[in-house]
């Protein structure tokens, strides 16, 4: 009567209930709502009842050159930021994974930007990126190139605006990945390193055959989260560039929010988020599958 596998499964279901309710309330319902709203012509503040318009919003969004540009910008941003930020985080984690005096201080320093509110980060970087020879980054580049650098207006130059956002995003986000990778590094048994050393493996071989395999799942996690955060790019754009110059820095999230709340077109904004959700979901699933094929979990 008691404790059969069936009642265990039932207990399991009961235990997942709180999490399932939370997921449904905070992910399921908003997504279903967004999808439903995207099929209407709902406008913020309109006195008229919304009408069902079918796929019109989706077709409009997919034909909108600005939205396509936003998708491209998101893809570019992720393609650069994910490898660079992960690589840098790994390098920092390796450098800081040493039992030296004062190491906690360095870890804290590198983690600090993660805690800063983005508005503060934006103000600081707006100053760093200031145009003209007086701007700190311009001055630094001039010094580094022995005067060969032509002072640029980073945030208002169509070619430099997105790279500038990438730079400050990496700076702000790298500490977070570093902490996770540090935790992963510390989870690798020291005995493996000692065994490798006894077998005559040099630092590079130890990194390739002990550290990387040991960090595998941590790295997969870090890459996935970084990619999702990269796709969600919004704050930087809203505060620093408003999508400009000439759509060089606009992103899907920025377009969705400005459609819904600046232009009151809630339905159009919802359609954008639904399209975006499907794309990100497909990318994440594809990534997971690739990893599984390569023998991961």
């Amino acid at each position, binding site marked *: 009567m008691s404790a059969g596998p069936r009642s265990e499964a039932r207990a399991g279901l009961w235990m997942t209930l709180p999490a399932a309710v939370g997921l449904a309330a*905070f992910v399921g319902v*908003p997504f279903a709502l967004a999808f439903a709203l995207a099929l209407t*012509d709902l*406008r*913020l*503040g*309109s*006195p*008229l009842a919304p009408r069902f318009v079918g796929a019109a919003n989706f077709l*409009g969004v997919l034909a909108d*050159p600005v939205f396509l540009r936003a998708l491209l910008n998101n893809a570019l941003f992720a393609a650069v930021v994910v490898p660079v930020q992960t690589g840098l985080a790994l390098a920092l984690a390796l450098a800081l994974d040493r039992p030296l005096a004062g190491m906690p201080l360095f870890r804290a320093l590198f983690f600090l930007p993660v805690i800063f509110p983005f508005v503060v980060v934006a103000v600081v970087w707006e100053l760093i990126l*200031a*145009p*003209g020879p007086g701007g700190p980054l311009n001055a630094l580049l001039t010094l580094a190139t022995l005067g060969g650098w032509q002072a640029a*207006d980073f945030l*208002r130059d*169509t070619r430099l605006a997105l790279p500038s956002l990438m730079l400050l995003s990496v700076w702000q986000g790298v500490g*977070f990945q570093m*902490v*996770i990778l540090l*935790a*992963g590094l510390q989870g690798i048994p020291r005995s493996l390193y000692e065994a490798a050393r006894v077998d005559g493996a040099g630092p590079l071989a130890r990194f390739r055959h002990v550290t990387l395999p040991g960090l595998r799942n*941590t790295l997969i*996690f870090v890459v996935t*989260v970084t990619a999702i*955060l990269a796709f*969600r790019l*919004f*704050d930087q754009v809203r505060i620093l560039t*408003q*999508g*400009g*110059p*000439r*759509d060089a820095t606009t992103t899907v999230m920025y377009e969705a929010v*400005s459609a819904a*709340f*600046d*232009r*009151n*077109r809630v339905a159009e904004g919802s359609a954008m988020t639904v399209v975006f959700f499907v794309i990100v979901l497909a990318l994440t699933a594809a990534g997971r599958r690739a990893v599984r094929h390569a023998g991961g979990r």
Partner: protein
Amino acid sequence: MKSLRGIGKGLGVGLATAVGATFLALAACTGGGAPEGSAEKAAGPVPVTLWYHTGRPAERDTITRQVAAFNARQHDFRAALTLIPEGAYGAQVQAAALAGDLPDLLELDGPMLASYAWAGRLRPLDGLLPDAATADLIPSLEVQGTWQGRRYGAGTFDSGLGLFADRAALAAAGIDLPADPAHAWDAARFRQVLGALAAHDPDGQVLDLKLNQRGEWLTYAFYPLLVSAGGDLIDRRTLKAAGTLDGPASVRALTELQGWIAGGRVDPDLDDAAFTSGRVALAWAGHWEYPRCKAALGERLAVLPLPDLGTGSRTAQGSWQWAVTKDARAPEGAARFLAFLLEPDQVLAMAQANGAPPGTRAATARSPLYGPGGPLRLFAEQLGTVSVPRPATPAYPAITAAFQRAVSDIAAGADVREALSRAAADIDRDVAASRYPVPGAPR
């Protein structure tokens, strides 16, 4: 475990950003609404709630004093003021409107009036506000407060836009000042002026367009150029943007603007001090810049009309104004307070606090800045004559968003016609999708 908690936090931040707006709306639903209800009790004055944007300290002090004066003067109503940060004002009103929680008397930005009125959030003032209270309003405010033939709003001040110039720098470059709006510089002359000034300027940048500012400034500052060239944001009769916003006249206007920038004549003004620090001799500036510029330049400061691109110099108008909400529990009290604010002394007090052109003729005549012979007299004369209102249509939020984007793109070197066509298509799509009423006859 430690790392997992970190992740949770990271995702939490993301979620918070994504659903922040929802929470805002929910908070608006649950909060507020409490103090009403006791109004019915015969004893004591009826409460009247009002919202005001947190302007400059002097402006805040003035409205606070005005509320106190109103409450001291009569005992039927008791006005209660809430100050709301300017940056979040629109969102706050939006949320409160959805929650049915708007105050009795609402301050709102002039060009948004049609949008609010169309949404059914405002109550017409005809019959509520005595005609005598608005009889003396300057013509530009008369236009701003009206939508589809009914008065919904009344402002106690307007705004002014022109060219601020450094007389000394102009004289050094051998340039004469235009005397009045009828003799504003035309496009060719303005280019000459910029060239002559640039010859006397180390970096060749002689004009400040305040391109460091974004948002509504871009529409406010540059749509008068469109109109001056014979173009407009939309066809004011059909509400269609295509053919007007991207018509030849509008394209010419913004090509002119782009020419100044591409020619290296415009200071990016990142420190917001291009004019006051003497880096440039000309600045596209609103009345609110006057105190700062006057302090920096003294007698050298001249206030000129904007350049004339063909049909005469045009300028902007419009500012904050008051409106009684549909859900107001004490509309008579709201109207009574508004009538009080429109009294000459009160209009003058507010205009003196914020430096804006006073909203009534009587107050203008008494204003040291805008009265006869005053240094900003030009702005007062332009209002209602060569000033153009931003289109009074519920599509205005979409119009200004599209135009702002086009101006930023054009300033960054985009093809003018292409940028304007895109903006026009965007606006027309919005108008078609939203089923806005189209005014039958031209005014």
